[in-house]
Each structure stands twice: as structure tokens, then as C-alpha cells.
């Protein structure tokens, strides 16, 4: 990774636990949901880090913890080098000028009683910033920029479609020209044609304003479309991080392999060529995660060592980190087609696994 000082967002050893309370007359804390359990990540200037995982992986908690919407249990979060985990709410205000958030549900993230103008101008008012030419002018420019009609300044959110509401949310997020925007599943509630519009808009805004994104999503295709680098989470732990190109063509972690192979491709011919790995079972409970590697209960590579020893996240190639005792270095048939396979060279320093996937089924 690049120099630590240059990162817009730097998260190290982040842990966010939620207490589990018993029901009854006297509620007691009887356990902890380890939603995020020791996560490291960094986002450089103008870069998009895609954070993928299934529900229960802790990706949304990471997004919230990074902006102190949920206070992390321990660990460090630095925005432009400034440590923010121990800041009070008041001291966080200037940080919020640098880092904004876009939410998943465009229906619930906007106050239905405020006009669009009111919603988008809120960041100016909260931060007591008077833009050149006045707030209204600035808001209308923003509205135009994100593809909304500036004349709709006085309308209410319920008069807009889902895609337009997400545009309102984006306008609010970029209002103060933040350095970082945390996007929590920003397109998963939208239809594909609208989703593509929003993805293009986010990318254009990034080019124009040099914004960095932490882009949290469950859809691997969407993440591939928008990200420069991708991080894969499972049950509160980071499994693998790599550049987009490497992650999608030469994944090492068995979980990444199975994730990639699970996504159907909208192309019947290609779909038939793939070998698909079917994971069995469900995500274990984050209250009582498996010992050793958290993925081992569903892993087709798992061996005795995996139950005992937690695999550390190690850098196996520049910019490519993986947390696995038995990474799969073979070219994944699950992902690429036959004619490209020879172009990929094996990754150095990765041991060849003793056995291949034992549950590879043809699509």
C-alpha cells in the first residue's frame, strides 16, 4: 500500500461489538455480536474501495463505524491523517465536512417533511458555511449537477422516484465537497436501468471533485464496475483485498472464489462454460463465531489447521492480501473463460493447495 500519510481514510484493527441482552425482568449482557472484528483498510485520494460481503459480514457496520455513526469498540480510524475515534460529537463536526455518507434506502434516508432544497442545504447550515452566491444558488447548481431539475427546489421527497431520491442523497453528500464519501449499498434498492445511471453519476463526481469512495455493496458486479480496489469481508473479518483486476481474475481466498462463482452472468453461453462452486450451509452466528478461520465451516479447503489457527491477512503480492492457510492459486475456472486462462501467470509465493475444490459442480 502507499504511504500511510497520504491515505484519505485509514482504518486499522477496527473492532465493533454489540452487546446481546437477555430478555426478562432484569436484562443482562449475555454475549457480544462481533460485527467487526479486527479490520484494516485504507482508501487513497480519488480512489474507490469496494467492500463486499454477504449480509452479516459486517460491511455495513464498518461503514457506520468509519463515520462514528456507531462508535467502534477499539481500533483506529484516521481521516486525512486525523484520528477520529476519540473525538467528541462536537469535535467531529469539522470531520463531517470532509466525510459524508450515502445510504441504501432512498425512501427512509430523507426527511419527508423537508423540501429537497432544505435537505440539500442542510450541510451548509449545520456547518455554517455561506457559499458564494448564496445557499439557494449553490443548492440549485448541485441539483443540476446530479441530474435533478433545479425548479423542483421546493418539492418534497415523496414527489420523486427512487432514483431521483438517491440523487437528492448524493447532492446532499457532495454539497460540501467532501474528501470521502461512504456509500452504503447506494444502488441495491434501485432498478438496473436507474442503478446504472447512479453508478455513472458517482463515477463522474469522483473525476470532477476528486472524491474517494468507500463503496459498500453485496453485488459483486456493481463493485467491479465502480471500484479500483476491492475488499472481501466475511463474518466481521477481512478475507482478501486486491486491485479490482487481480481480485476478479486471480482471487486466492476460497470464499472469494465461491462468491465470484455464485454470481450468475447475464450471458447463457458464458454461464455454461463456468464451473460453479456451491457453498453449503449458512453464515454462522457472529455471537459465537467458529474458532480459527471464521470461514472454515463452509470452506471446501478447510483442514485441521484452520480450526486452530486464525490465518493472518498477509500480503502475497504487492497490493494483494489474503487471510487463508490454503489459498487457491490455480486459475479459477469459475471466473474466467478458457481462452484467457493461459494469460494469467501463477502468483509467486503462494503454495499450491494440496487438493482442489471438492465440490465443483458444472453450471
Amino acid at each position: 500500500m502507499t504511504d500511510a500519510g497520504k491515505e484519505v481514510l485509514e482504518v486499522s484493527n477496527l473492532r465493533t461489538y454489540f452487546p446481546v441482552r437477555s430478555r426478562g425482568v432484569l436484562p443482562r449482557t449475555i454475549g457480544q455480536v462481533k460485527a467487526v472484528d479486527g479490520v484494516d483498510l485504507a482508501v487513497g485520494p480519488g480512489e474507490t474501495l469496494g467492500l463486499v460481503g454477504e449480509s452479516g459480514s459486517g460491511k455495513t457496520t464498518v461503514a457506520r463505524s468509519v463515520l462514528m455513526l456507531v462508535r467502534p469498540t477499539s481500533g483506529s480510524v484516521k481521516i486525512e491523517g486525523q484520528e477520529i475515534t476519540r473525538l467528541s460529537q462536537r469535535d467531529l463536526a469539522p470531520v463531517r465536512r470532509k466525510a459524508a455518507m450515502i445510504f441504501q434506502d432512498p425512501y427512509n434516508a430523507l426527511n419527508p417533511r423537508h423540501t429537497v432544497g432544505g435537505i440539500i442545504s442542510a450541510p451548509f447550515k449545520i456547518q455554517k458555511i455561506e457559499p458564494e452566491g448564496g445557499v439557494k444558488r449553490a443548492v440549485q447548481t448541485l441539483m443540476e449537477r446530479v441530474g435533478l431539475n433545479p425548479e423542483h427546489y421546493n418539492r418534497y421527497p415523496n414527489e420523486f422516484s427512487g432514483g431521483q431520491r438517491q440523487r437528492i442523497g448524493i447532492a446532499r453528500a457532495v454539497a460540501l465537497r467532501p474528501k470521502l464519501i461512504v456509500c452504503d449499498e447506494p444502488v441495491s434498492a434501485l432498478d438496473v436501468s436507474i442503478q446504472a445511471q447512479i453508478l455513472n453519476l458517482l463515477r463522474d463526481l469522483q473525476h470532477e471533485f476528486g472524491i474517494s469512495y468507500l463503496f459498500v455493496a453485496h453485488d459483486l458486479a456493481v463493485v467491479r464496475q465502480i471500484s479500483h480496489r476491492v475488499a472481501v469481508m466475511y463474518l466481521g473479518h477481512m478475507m482478501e483485498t486486491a486491485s479490482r483486476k487481480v481480485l476478479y481474475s486471480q482471487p486466492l481466498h476460497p470464499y472469494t472464489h465461491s462468491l465470484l462463482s455464485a454470481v450468475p452472468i447475464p450471458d447463457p453461453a458464458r454461464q455454461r462454460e463456468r464451473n460453479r462452486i456451491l457453498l453449503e450451509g449458512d453464515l454462522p452466528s457472529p455471537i459465537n463465531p467458529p474458532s480459527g478461520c471464521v470461514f472454515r465451516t463452509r470452506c471446501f479447503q478447510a483442514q485441521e489447521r484452520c480450526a486452530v489457527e486464525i490465518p493472518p491477512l498477509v500480503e502475497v503480492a504487492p497490493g494483494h492480501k489474503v487471510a487463508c492457510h490454503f489459498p487457491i492459486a490455480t486459475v479459477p475456472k469459475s471466473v474466467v473463460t478458457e481462452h484467457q486462462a493461459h494469460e494469467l501467470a501463477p502468483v509467486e509465493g503462494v503454495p499450491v493447495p494440496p487438493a482442489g475444490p471438492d465440490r465443483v459442480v458444472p453450471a
Partner: protein
Amino acid sequence: MSTVHAAKGVSSGATEVPERPFLSVENLSVKFPTEDGLVQAVDGVSLTIEQGKTLAIVGESGSGKSVTAQAIMGLIDRRTARMSGQVWLDGQELMGLPMPDLQAIRGSQIAMIFQDPMSSLHPFYRIGDQIIEAIRVHRSVSKKQARKETIDMLRRVGIPAVERRVDDFPHQLSGGMRQRVMIAMALINSPRLLIADEPTTALDVTVQAQIMELIASIQDEFKITVILITHDLGVVADVADEVAVMYGGRVVERATTAALYLKPEMPYTLGLLSSIPRMDKEMDRLDPIPGNPPSPINLPKGCVFQPRCAYWERVPDDLCKTTRPELLATVPDHMVRCHLEPEVRREISASVLSVLSGGRS
């Protein structure tokens, strides 16, 4: 199709010509009167499926795909909706059936699974009891026998430790397990038609793959005809034999799955394909359809897609704005609802697809 205009309510199959396919939806329309106006949810939809095949109905929200499915199942409240058209299942017309006859068909001949398995199972009853209820409403078997059948079916759909799980409540199961329970409940009376309404949308990808695999294997085993309602063109490519693309309450293109992906002709289908981010390709920029879907209260007068279509100006006389195009065969087994000349459509299609396939893998 000499009997297309057969009087509504004719339910005996004896007079029917055998050429009618296994399932045939003919000119189905569903309208809901609301305070804001008449919601035209489904507007003259015709579909056919042969026995044992899978038809995917693809569309975005508001396209009318779910309402179509519920109308086939007879789940639309006849008191609040205005419906017309016919649904023929194996020679029997369903739309005109009196309620008791329809209830006898639901759950035995046609079964349905839904998007959200959590909210689709009753939270207060044990999963086993919910399936036993489905058995005993259609067949007079003892509770003991029904329970045995339930356990066997739950085992078939891949529920582990069935003897223990059968008495669980829905909230004690994971999302994937709940959807397996829904599938078991749907299959328990050996239906001939299974309607799956976005069965994997609420599930994680790895679980989605498990469930689609299960549906495919069950279809093989039980020889069931499947209607798959989805917005996900990836899932469609995986399992469907034929695809109907819906937009604004109408079917705008219908083809075999291979033909739809290789030679799509309707500009909306092309737009959908260019909108999807691809897992297997790296694209610099998506090429989405501009604008928003039309309001079902105020559909465009001509082609429903015209306001978002990039090519309507290539049709003379503003025909797309004024005249509703018909769903016509362009080649055998491929129907398109578009005013553009077939040659022009194919030319457009070829150029869009070549841009699409230009992405790096």
C-alpha cells in the same frame, strides 16, 4: 387458435382444441382504480409455456410482472381490480372460475413461492404445521401421514436435521432455509405449475446459487413447469428456456433465452443489457437507459418505451408517439413490440452488442 375468443366461464376441457399450450395467458389486463386514477398494471399480456419448460418474465419494478403472476394464480382481489383476458391451464380456463374451484387449484395444480421467505411464512405457526395444513386442505390424509410426507419433502429440499427442524418456527431458521421451506410447501401437492416470484432477490449470492440449483433439480425430478419472475438477467440466463421482457405492463419482447441474449431486438432489452454491470467484464462506463419508467396511471399513448427510447426518431410520422405497436414475430419464436423496421432493429442491436462485448474480461 380458434378458441381464443371462447366465452368466458367455459371450464370444461372437452370442447377445447388440443393445440393450446400447457399454460396460455391470453390478453390479460389488470387495472386498479385508485384515488389518483386508474392504475394500468397489466395491459394485454399474452404468454404461453409448454409443459416442463421454464419461462422467465423479466422486468423492472412497476413493469407488471408480479401482478401478471398473481393474476395467473388468481390472487388478485376480484372486488378491487378490473380484470379481463383468459388464463388457460391444461385446457381449463381459470379467470372465470368460481372461488371454490379456484381454491381447489391453488396449491395443488399451481403453487407459488415469493420474494421474502421471512414474511411469507406465518410467524406464529411451526413450519411443519404450515406444510401439513397445505396437504390437508387438498387431500384427506391423516395428520400422521401428512407429517411423514412433510418430513420427507423437507429432507428433499435440503433441510438438515429435519426431525428437529420440522417443529421450528420460521424465525428460528436462516433466510435460505426459510426459502427451502417455502419450496417444500409449494411442492408438497405435486403441482404442475410453479410460479417463483423473485425467489432469490432477498437472499445472499451464495444462498441464491443454492436455491436456484434446488429449483432446477426439482424441476427435473418432478417435471414441473416454472414461471420465474425476476429483475435479474443473470438468473434468467442461468435457468430459463424462454424469456418475456415486460415494460409498462406490456410484454415488449419474447424469445428463447439464447436468442434474447444473442439477438435482442427491442431497444428496451438492449438498454437493460447495457445497464447491467458485468461480473465477467470490466467496462469503463455503463450505458444506461435515460429517464425513469412511466407512471402506470399515465402510460404513453403510443409505445410505452418511446419517452426513453433513443431510436424513435428513426420511425417516420411520430408513429411511436401516436400508435401502440403490436407484439409481432420477427423470426419464428421471437416476438418484438417495436415500430422500427426489423433490419434497422438488427443493425442497432448488432452495434450495441459489439460495444458491450468490447469490454475487457
